[in-house]
């Protein structure tokens, strides 16, 4: 049977067909849908772990238990999980493990661009790279076979464009039956990496890499595709597909295994074409290796950009500049002025918005984190000073306060992000005694990636009821004396709690708890502006709500536009009503 599947759906299907019994992940674009789809296969235990490192530890444990397992993460998640990647490369498994890393060239939804092919080289593990959904599915099975054969974790590198593109996939059946329960294969010298044992594993790993390089020579997806031999293109991943469009006549060396590289195959290919070009997204990973082998690269990163995501147009333009194709494609020329931008914004009714409204009012140095509230960096809210990575907010605020500036530094971090990487930072503030106020923006879900449950929600990925983590109890257990919880949609209450937290001048936690608007069945209300009372003061615009818009009606005195509420967008949070000094905004009946 054939189906149109996205790359992520195909990876999930591949896990099912190839007998995976354990799958774990933390949500992160562009990888999230892998676990969201795996959970439909009842034969697989699937979980959202608190973070990627814990997800990988769990998948490693399942592989130690002799089973086939999968861990999935976005590319920066592998930074979090890197320590586990490295020890698992030393130990190998009784079973098998595939680690999916979803890179995000172009940073559609990430804080940096990074090329995780280097992790394969760094941790000395094999890496496969699919070019479409069919391969994404098939490579899960291949990766697990390689993992079993070479006693190593195998990285499967996806990119946003592979994850979120759909193509036709031939579906198969699940190969394995119910897994048998065997005694644990006790082997401390292999699985307990104290220095003395790790020293004995390291040469095994080096030999494994040589064996893998030999295997790569005959890996079925490393292959020359012969065309016109005046041009030889070396490519992998989705860049291979773009290059295929741009150079329809050329010869290709397509590398489905990005590490270790098949040097004999590469040399043979290079010797049979007049010139070699390398087309790869992000860093010159293949190019550097070819150059190190003494192969001349006629065009690589000097033409094909190191920045941003490719598309066929970008590859064609670069090829044109490099003199590799005779013409490029130009769209019709259209003269038009600058268009109003349409960036994503916090939803109308979002409980994060009033928190930033208050932080702006107090002139605090706001150190923020990864989540929807990252949108508070941009206008109209524009109330964030630093934002680095998962969990960074608290540590950075602590450092700023300890080093000392005129203003107070605070941290804002979401509920799922606090569970993920915020707890050690929260502990550091109270242990090392800085006067940092940490605001936990608790909207009771992992909102940005599509509302996944987390350890505070009382639900698991598989839909089971479970315990609910308690931030108040957590903070008190760490030693916090200043712990407050407020409803951020109540501005007065929130402002008083913020003031009290700041005035205490010691470690403090302020939990602002209100559900994400997607958690409601219907909107709690609807507001309107009384245009008689409105004097166009603009205070309600300062909240930055997309439902509060300029009216066509102009206030005679000030000459400015009055306010109006878009009744389709309004969610009924009442924050605009609370900021209006003239009582000019009120709830609509019914």
């Amino acid at each position, binding site marked *: 049977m054939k189906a149109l599947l996205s790359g992520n759906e195909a990876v999930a299907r591949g896990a099912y067909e190839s007998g995976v019994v354990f799958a774990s992940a933390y949500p992160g674009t562009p990888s999230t849908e892998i676990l969201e789809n795996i959970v439909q296969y009842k034969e697989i235990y699937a979980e959202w772990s608190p973070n990627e490192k814990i997800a990988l530890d769990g998948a490693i444990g399942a592989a130690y238990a002799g089973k086939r397992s999968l861990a999935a993460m976005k590319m920066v998640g592998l930074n979090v999980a890197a320590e586990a990647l490295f020890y698992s490369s030393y130990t190998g498994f009784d079973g098998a493990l595939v680690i999916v890393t979803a890179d995000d060239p172009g940073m559609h939804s990430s804080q940096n661009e990074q090329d995780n092919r280097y992790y394969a080289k760094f941790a000395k593990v094999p890496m496969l790279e699919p070019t479409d959904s069919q391969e994404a599915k098939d490579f899960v099975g291949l990766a697990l076979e390689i993992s079993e054969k070479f006693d190593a974790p195998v990285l499967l590198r996806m990119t946003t464009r592979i994850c979120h593109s759909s193509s036709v996939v031939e579906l198969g059946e699940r190969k394995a039956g119910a897994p048998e329960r065997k005694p644990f294969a006790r082997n401390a010298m292999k699985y307990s990496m104290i220095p003395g044992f790790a020293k004995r594993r390291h040469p095994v790993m080096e030999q494994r890499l040589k064996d893998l390089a030999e295997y790569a020579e005959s890996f079925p997806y490393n292959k020359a595709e012969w065309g016109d031999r005046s041009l030889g293109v070396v490519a992998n991943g989705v860049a291979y597909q773009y290059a295929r469009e741009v150079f329809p006549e050329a010869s290709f060396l397509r590398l489905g295994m990005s590490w270790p590289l098949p040097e004999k195959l590469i040399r043979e290919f290079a010797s049979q074409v007049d010139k070699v070009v390398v087309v790869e997204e992000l860093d010159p990973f293949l190019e550097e290796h070819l150059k190190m082998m003494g192969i001349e690269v006629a065009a690589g990163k000097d033409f094909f950009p190191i920045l941003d995501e490719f598309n066929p147009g970008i590859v064609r333009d670069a090829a044109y500049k490099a003199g590799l194709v005779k013409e490029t494609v*130009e*769209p019709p020329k259209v003269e038009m002025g600058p268009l109003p931008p349409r960036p994503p914004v916090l939803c109308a009714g979002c409980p994060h918005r009033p928190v930033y409204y208050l932080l702006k009012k107090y002139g605090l140095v706001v150190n923020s984190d990864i989540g929807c509230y990252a949108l508070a960096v941009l206008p109209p809210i524009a109330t964030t000073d630093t934002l680095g990575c998962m969990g960074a907010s608290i540590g950075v605020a602590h450092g700023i306060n300890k080093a000392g500036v005129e203003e107070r530094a605070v941290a804002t971090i979401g509920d799922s992000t606090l569970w993920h990487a915020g707890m050690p930072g929260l502990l550091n503030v109270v242990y090392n005694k800085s006067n940092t106020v940490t605001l936990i923006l608790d909207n009771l879900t992992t909102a940005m990636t599509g509302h996944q449950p987390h350890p505070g929600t009382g639900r698991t990925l598989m839909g089971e009821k479970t315990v609910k983590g308690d931030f108040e109890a957590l903070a008190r257990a760490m030693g916090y004396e200043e712990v407050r919880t407020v409803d951020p949609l109540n501005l007065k209450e929130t402002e008083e709690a913020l003031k009290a937290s700041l005035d205490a001048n010691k470690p403090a936690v302020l939990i602002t708890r209100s559900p994400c608007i997607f958690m409601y069945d219907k909107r709690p209300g609807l507001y309107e502006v009384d245009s008689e009372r409105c004097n166009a003061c603009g205070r309600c615009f300062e909240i930055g709500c997309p439902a509060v*818009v300029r009216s066509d009606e102009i206030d005679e005195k000030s000459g400015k536009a009055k306010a109006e509420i878009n009744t389709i967008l309004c969610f009924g949070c009442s924050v605009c009503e609370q900021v209006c000094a003239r009582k000019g905004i009120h709830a609509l009946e019914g």
Partner: protein
Amino acid sequence: MKTTNFALVGVGGQGVLLASDILAEVGVEAGYDVKKSEVHGMAQRGGSVLSQVRWADKVYAPLVGNGEVDYLISFELLEALRWLQLLRKGGTAIVNEQRLPPLAVSSGGMEYPSPEQIGKALAAGTGAYHIVPALAKAEELGTERATNVVLIGALSRFLDVPEEDWLKVIERRVPEKYLELNRKAFAAGRAL
């Protein structure tokens, strides 16, 4: 068979992604190799949305660059202008007659392009353009949510694919209780 590239654009929440799912599956139904590409995550939340669909004997790239799209289907007027450069010389734009002013217009200082500006840009950037009342037709049928299927109906007139292939996919993709509504929406679009 002829290679055909589509771009579907609009605003998060307008149903662009369902429309591109339907278009991709119709391509499969009609015997093409098909790829579809879109971006999730931060791109939603009321932001600008782009999805691309390609039909051909053999599709390599899941998306194309500027100047390579045959049909631009825009769910909103301003978004049609934003993505116009995707269209090839002589390409066709089908544009839903709907204005959704972004924040920069509704509470900021920027102006939404005037109907004249929109008409001029579309005339210069396309071989043919059609501004269609898809939203109004959907509202006549009782819900603006059917706008996407009205637009799919409007697009279907330009493509050499039997009507039953479109209806077969719509039947597969749409929940039973909305099926009749969506059949009507498709027919209304096809009649535009």
